[in-house]
Structures are given as C-alpha cells and as structure tokens.
C-alpha cells in the first residue's frame, strides 16, 4: 500500500541497529566529522609495493581525510609517507601521480627534500634567512606508514593510533594465505561518482544485490552452497565472506580461468575493511577497492587489479582477461554496481533527500544475503561518531 507523507517518514519498526537515517549520506557536517573522527584516525590502504618498486620511486595519494600525501621508497628501501606539500609556501610538492626522483624539489622556490623527508636545500638561504631558519625545522610532515599483507602500504594520519595489525584485528586472515606470492598491480582506475562513500562500501558489504548482476545469478546463485556462505565479523567494523565455487562456465565466454595459487578453481573470498576498503580475491585476480570521499555525495573509488609478479606474459594476459570480464570498465559487474550506487546518489543527493531511512534488516543466520555486514559497519560507525547511525541528530528514541 502506498504511504502518505507521515507514513513515509515514520521511523522503521526495526531495532535501530537495522536501519540508518539517510541523512548520514548527505549531511555536510556529518561528512566533515567523519573525516576527522574516522578517516584521520584509521589505517587507510594507500598503494601497493609494485607501484614504488625501486629506491626513490614515489606515489601520490589523496587521503580520505582530505590531505594530499606522497609515499616515497627511500635509499634504505623503507617506504615513508609525507604530506605532499612544501613547508615553505604550501605548494604541492609532487605533481605527477608516480615517478622516481632522488630529490623532491618544489618548483615554486626550489626548496629540496630527500627521500627521508629531510629538507636538504633552501635556495639563497643565507641571503634571505641568514641564521634564522634551520633546515631541521622545515622537514616534511611524516605520516605513519606500515606494510601489510600482500605488500600493500597503509597510512595513518594519527601519530597515536594502534599498529596496523591490531586495527585489522585478524580480518584479513581468510585471504592472507593466498597473498604470500609477490603481487603486482596491472589495473588501476579512479572512478568519480555522485554518491556517498558509504553507499559504495555498503554495496561491497552485502550480497543481496546479486539480483542486479545477471553474471552472479548465472555463475553463483544457482550453484550449490552459494546461499550457505557465512559472514564473519571482526572488531573495528571489518567483515569477511568465505569461499564458494563460482561456475564461470555457466556464462558464455567465462570458462577456462587461470586460477590462483592455493585457491580452489572458481574460489572467491571477500573482506570488507572499515571504513571503505575491500579485498576481493576471485578465482584468478585480486581486486582492491579504496573509497576516497570527496564530498557527502561524491566519492572517488580507486580500483586495483593484481596478479602475480612472476606471471609470464601469457599468464598475465589471461589474468587481465578474467579481470576485465567482471571488473573492468567494460566488465559485467562493475558497471551494474556503479549504476545501482549512482541511482542511490540521485535519490540521496542532499538534505532534501527523497528517502528518510535505509534498511539493512535482513537476518539469515549471517549467511550471504544476511545484511549483517552493513549492520556491523554501522555499529562501528556509530561508536566512532558517538551517536547511532539510525538517529544521528538525537531526534527519536527508536526501539
């Protein structure tokens, strides 16, 4: 039965852990608060070691909290991260997204910095600063950096956060056994869409949207065991989904996949990491998503596809083909996921949002179409933000 205005805005008759106030996707103040309370204090995946393989290689990263960073592999092989800004006059230090340089030179006034963040040169220093400015006081702002499973580099803007492994709380355990071989990024794409970052992560955190994917319906949902897979939740808002066998041969042009060391044919593991990263190992390719929120209704999704560094050209070509069939820009699933999420972005565009509540109330013993993954995310979100996602403005008591 259609509902009138009062009914439409009536609080859902669910526990308040089972729905959210839609304004958490649109409110500017909440967005800023998320950047400060969540992103600035959380380990965020910045890049993979293959993106800065040699000493002096660098890689820029737009941090979800808003800061522009640059990661640099030092002459001691250690990867460090810094704010990508010259301490002199605030110019962007490194402009290219990746490259190699023994010295990072600000083009504005030619101040120079080494791969360890030390200021090594101030042009015409004696003439202008005399003895009033020491190089040691104008080094780069260092950001905590750790290498994690699979060779990924993580950064944390907070100097007092727990170590990366404590933060991950074992959530990558299901996938780590398959990340022992050196990996290499072969696909990288930044996609800017009009939607809140949480909506993208929500989609990665629930399989109920299988229905939007013809591919999943054919290769997954009709296969034995598909609905029996279980979500496992971990501290700090992370969740994983166990493997099943995907029948790619059920989709024309989808057979003969190359596989992944140790993974059963057609195997599939997925780990969602709070607040916006996903590890997705599916038969022959590891896909990594990193959501970079730009505004309440705008997110850049960094998409990486990885294979094995030891791949022969022929093996790599097969892996790339497998990746593209599902997750490439012209692939079957990616376009469908983006269509669904941008559809949400149209409805949940600003404070005049068409919807007041979004539900995640499915309970199926934590199996694949249970929405426990999203509930677990919003429990952590509520803890970090100091208020429930279902009542972010303390307007109602809920159940």
């Amino acid at each position, binding site marked *: 039965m259609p509902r009138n205005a009062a009914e439409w805005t009536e609080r859902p008759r669910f526990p308040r852990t089972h729905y959210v106030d839609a304004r958490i996707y649109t409110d500017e103040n909440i967005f800023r608060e998320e950047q400060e309370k969540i992103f600035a204090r959380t380990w965020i995946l910045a890049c993979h070691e293959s993106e800065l393989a040699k000493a002096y290689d660098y890689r820029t990263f737009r941090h979800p909290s808003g800061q522009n960073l640059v990661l640099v592999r030092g002459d001691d092989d250690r990867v460090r991260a810094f704010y990508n800004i010259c301490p002199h006059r605030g110019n962007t230090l490194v402009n290219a997204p990746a490259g190699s340089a023994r010295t990072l030179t600000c083009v504005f006034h030619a101040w120079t910095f080494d791969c360890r963040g030390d200021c090594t040169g101030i042009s015409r220093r004696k003439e202008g600063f005399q003895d009033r400015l020491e190089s040691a006081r104008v080094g780069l702002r260092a950001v905590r950096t750790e290498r994690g499973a699979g060779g990924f580099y993580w950064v944390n803007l907070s100097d007092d956060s727990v170590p990366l492994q404590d933060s991950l709380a074992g959530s990558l355990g299901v996938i780590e056994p398959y990340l022992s071989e050196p990996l290499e990024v072969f696909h990288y794409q930044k996609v800017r*869409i009009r939607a809140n970052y949480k909506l993208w992560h929500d989609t990665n955190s629930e399989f109920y949207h299988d229905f939007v994917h013809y591919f999943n319906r054919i290769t997954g949902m009709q296969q034995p065991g598909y609905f029996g897979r279980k979500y496992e939740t971990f501290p700090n808002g992370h969740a994983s989904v166990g493997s099943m066998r995907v029948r790619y041969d059920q989709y024309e042009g989808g057979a003969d996949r190359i596989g992944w060391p140790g993974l059963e044919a057609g195997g599939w593991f997925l780990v969602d990491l709070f607040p916006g990263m996903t590890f997705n190992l599916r038969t022959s390719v590891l896909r990594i998503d990193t959501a970079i929120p730009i505004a309440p209704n705008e997110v850049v999704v960094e998409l990486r596809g990885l294979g094995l560094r030891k791949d022969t050209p022929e093996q790599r070509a097969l892996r790339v083909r497998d990746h593209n069939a599902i997750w490439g820009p012209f692939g079957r699933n990616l376009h469908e996921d*983006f*269509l669904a999420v941008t559809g949400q972005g149209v409805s949940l565009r600003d404070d005049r949002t068409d919807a007041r509540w979004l539900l995640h109330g499915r309970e199926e013993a934590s199996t694949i179409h249970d929405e426990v993954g999203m509930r677990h995310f919003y429990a952590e979100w509520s803890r970090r933000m100091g208020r429930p996602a279902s009542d972010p403005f303390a307007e109602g008591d809920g159940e």
Partner: protein
Amino acid sequence: MRTAVEELVYRSCLLLDAHDFPAFLDLCTDDFRYTVEAHAPEIRRAMVWLDHDKAGMKALFENLPRHFSDPSPLTRHATVYTVTFEAGGGRASVVTALQVFRTVLDGGTSSLFAVGKLYDTVVVTDGRVALARRVVKLDTRDLGIGSHVPF
C-alpha cells in the same frame, strides 16, 4: 580507396551507435580482433581493458540484453586523421580521433564520456574493405559508471 577506408571507420561508429552489432561484425574480417587500451601514469603501466576476437565480441554483444546497463545513448564522433596503405595496397593502417558523448534519456543532456584514438587495420580485397584489427587507445580513464558497450 581512401574514401572507402574512411567510410568503413565512420560506418563502424554509426553501427555501434545504433547498437546494430551484427552489422558491425559484418564489417570485420573473420580474424578480427578488438582491444581497448589505456596507459595509467599512476602505476606507470599500459593496461588492456578489453581484448576479444570476433567470437568474443559476438558473445559480448549477445549478452548485452541480459545485463542491467545504462540506457543513455553513446554517440561516437570520429575524424580519420591518417590512412597509410602498405605497398601493394592490400592493407591500410588508419588513425582516427574519437570522442564519445553520452546523452541522458531524461532531458537529453549530452556530455563528453571519453576521448581517445582508434588504431585500425583495414584489409582491401578485390576493392572491398574490411576491418581486421581495432585498437582503441583511451586518454580518458575515469569512465564514471563505465559501459557495457565498447567504443
């Protein structure tokens, strides 16, 4: 013959615009191969985003109606820059500038979707031209929601 080659390229765009995929494949040789490539400065690496032979393209096209896709029409604007015939004239390399525009159904607003170039190989047999190889090299890498329909 240059005119015939140019018209082949333009016709291929018109047929893809019109979603007349069987007619597009009829323009191609049996050993036709289609590839979409892009270079990622972020990983300092060339990427392949799509790579199919004629049978693979046929399967891709036939699966399109089964998928949830953006219904916004894509319009290809192509300008053939160079046509270089091999000695003997049996084969030509063609470089074409390509822009792809997307027009939303509600209101009909058009926007630029992608920029790149087509690198085609055209074979000439008994005065007839056919597309043997197409490499789409995209400058645009942020394709937003993406597309199920190749360029």
